[in-house]
């Protein structure tokens, strides 16, 4: 039982990170109907932004950690907005395939730029938050896991508030449903799309930092695998569906962790992709997604 709970906590903390990344995929898909493959590299840039920022602020401190986290989120939000503006917007009226290919190119660009500027060798990620372990009976919660849970919960609640209660969030949902109708009520779709990219990229940055806290080493290609898995999580939950992305991320994290603890642990990384194939076969709309009826 203890082991089960321990594994569950480990799984949820990994899943929370997948969820944070998955939200960016799903939100961008919601407004633009394409998969931003460069998203996983924004996650990586978030980790590096945290790495460099942490040199200027106290380590192992709550205040310093939060500043680094917020700083990385802001940097990535701006980066996401700039990428959309320069690379994707000019192709807005072209076929989705063109944008998709551009996104793959952007991903490669960021990875190579990362290797050029940050160096290809892994770097040790600093300890940002105060170290402590919390024992709940025999179950151990590390401070990094705590950080993951707290940050994820705050971010999810904040995101839900933005999307459901604010004007720009409502506009996001409106654009996502029908961009033409949105422009007819005076919504500037470009602004909403920029906002969405900024928001999604900020979440990826948070994910990148939390991930690095737990894995302690970062490198310019670190985004690829978690990014792919988060993409699977987004599809699992129902691409375009925000609660779905959160649910998909958590589920995937838990499933992977339990697998990792079993005798099939060598196949852990294959789980996500097996899952993807199964979803696409049996429930293409995802767990929370509604089957899309082509509009007439």
């Amino acid at each position, binding site marked *: 039982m203890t082991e089960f709970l321990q594994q569950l906590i480990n799984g949820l903390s990994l899943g929370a990170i997948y969820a944070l990344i998955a939200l960016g995929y799903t939100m961008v898909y919601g407004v633009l109907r394409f998969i931003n493959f460069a998203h996983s590299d924004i996650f990586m840039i978030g980790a590096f932004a945290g790495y460099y920022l942490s040199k200027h602020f106290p380590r192992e401190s709550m205040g310093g950690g939060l500043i680094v986290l917020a700083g990385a989120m802001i940097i990535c939000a701006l980066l996401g907005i700039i990428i959309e503006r320069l690379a994707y917007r000019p192709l807005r009226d072209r076929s989705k395939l063109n944008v998709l290919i551009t996104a793959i190119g952007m991903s490669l660009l960021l990875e190579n730029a990362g290797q050029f500027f940050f160096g290809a060798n892994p770097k040790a990620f600093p300890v940002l938050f105060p170290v402590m372990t919390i024992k709940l009976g025999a179950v151990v919660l590390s401070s990094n896991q705590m950080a993951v849970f707290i940050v994820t919960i705050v971010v999810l609640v904040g995101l839900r508030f933005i999307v459901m209660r604010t004007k720009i969030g409502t506009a996001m949902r*409106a654009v996502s*449903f*029908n961009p033409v109708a*949105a*422009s007819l*009520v*005076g*919504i500037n779709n470009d602004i909403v799309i920029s906002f969405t990219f900024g928001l999604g990229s900020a979440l990826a940055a948070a994910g990148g930092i939390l991930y690095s806290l737990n894995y302690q080493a970062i490198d310019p290609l670190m985004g690829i695998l978690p990014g792919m898995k988060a993409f699977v999580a987004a599809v699992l939950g129902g691409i375009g569906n925000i609660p779905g992305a959160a649910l998909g991320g958590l589920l995937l994290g838990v499933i992977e962790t339990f697998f990792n603890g079993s005798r099939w642990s060598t196949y852990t990384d294959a789980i996500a992709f097996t899952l993807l194939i199964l979803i696409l076969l049996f429930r293409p709309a995802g767990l929370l997604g509604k089957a899309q009826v082509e509009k007439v």
Partner: protein
Amino acid sequence: MLEIKNLTVNYGAICALRGVSLEVKQGDIVTLIGANGAGKTTTLRAVSGLLKAQSGEVLYQGRNITNLPAHQIVKLGMSHVPEGRMVFANLTVLENLMMGAYLQKDKTVIQQEMDYVFGIFPRLKERLKQVAGTLSGGEQQMLAIGRALMSKPKFLMLDEPSLGIAPLLVKTIFEKIVEINQQQGISILLVEQNANLALEISRYGYVLETGRIILQDECAALRQNPQVKSAYLGGM
């Protein structure tokens, strides 16, 4: 209010409008009728900035708004209720109306507009929290018109408000359109397949055929016109 001069619109190689000119005067109701595929929707979409015009001009309150983006045209006080209603099916009725007032910063003005919309369509007030996608077709049309009114327009374009709605409700909706025009002084350009009703409530009418205006006159006269009678008013 609105003046369209020689408007030409192409979809790729297909020429949908071939030099359309029409005018809506301040406070007027003008209707544009025509068969399926004549180019009525295209005309409205070009005016509201959803489509680029190849040539010609759209003047709104004396200002050239040709090819201005749609969201900027809304700012000038023009509202377009699109064909097929296009309510935000994933948003509640209230959220749809609030989005209609997207450009309005003043909360009291928004509340006034909302009260006005509820006055016209009390049904919407009963269903504020309902998700728009679950409204009936007629209710969605009311919502689409209500949403368009939330921006406090001076000029309203309606694309087939009778589409797919029971005859009794169509009558109500047309009465409301007249009411909006008379009480608020909002000028209206109405596109309809139901030429009978459209010519009844409008003052002036244009007949569009394959991208060209082939007839224009006072509606009273158009209704007596043998060509209009046989083609659009069901024979006699």
